[in-house]
């Protein structure tokens, strides 16, 4: 089928963009959660 490779390219690149975007959100959130826990621990040792 003519142009089937273009259709697959569009879907793969498109979903690749969404996947990378979601991974960056998940990574940034996980880093911030770790930071929150670290700060909470630091504050509790000060009290």
């Amino acid at each position, binding site marked *: *089928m*003519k*142009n*089937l490779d*273009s*259709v697959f*390219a*569009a*879907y793969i*690149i*498109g979903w690749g*963009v*969404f996947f990378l*975007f*979601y991974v960056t*959100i*998940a990574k*940034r*959130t996980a880093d*911030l*959660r770790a*930071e*929150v826990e670290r*700060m*909470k621990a*630091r*504050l509790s040792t000060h009290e």
Partner: protein
Amino acid sequence: MAKRITLGAVALLLVIASAYASFYIAPQERTMGVIQRIFYFHVASAWAGFTAFLICFIGNLLYVWKRADKYDWLGVSSAEVGLAFTTVVLITGPIWAHPVWGIWWTWDARLTSTFVLWLLYVSYLLLRTLIEEPDRRALLSSLFGIFAFIDVPLVFGAIRWWRTQHPSPVIMGGQGSGLEPTMKAVFFFSVIAMHVFMTFLIVERYILEKTKAEVDILQREVEA
């Protein structure tokens, strides 16, 4: 957490089902052939992007009015998600255009206004990185976001008001436009799937912004 996982799972199932429907249920278009199947992904992503920018616009308006942080978080979250969807539109569009038009890109009203839309929301996010003071950052970016949204109706109307290389609308395009019933059903199913996926991404991105605010509060406590 359980609600977020459920939303993510539903979004994933719906986008898989919509991809399946686009390839195996929707009939082959007569003139363009298989390449037309990009339509279900390209246009559904564009509509979901428009909705994300509308949510951003509402968040921006509410922030200017009420000055509550949650509206600023909603604004930035939906702007970033809308930008991801518009990026996909700007990538899948030329992949579809090349075999059909013989060119990857042309500066017609629809393509140019979409590119300007992308640039406006990149600027919105860049602006936020340049202002340190949180309240000032939220207010200025909200005002900019309200201005940026003006381009959304321009993108929507471009193929209705002006003669463009981009095809005329098949949905809400007036007399002579329209889709074959199965194509229409698959298209609207794809639109729903992309909207659920967009909602999931906005929720995830909103939680990131909320956590950032939590870090800022704790940082001040640690420094005090």
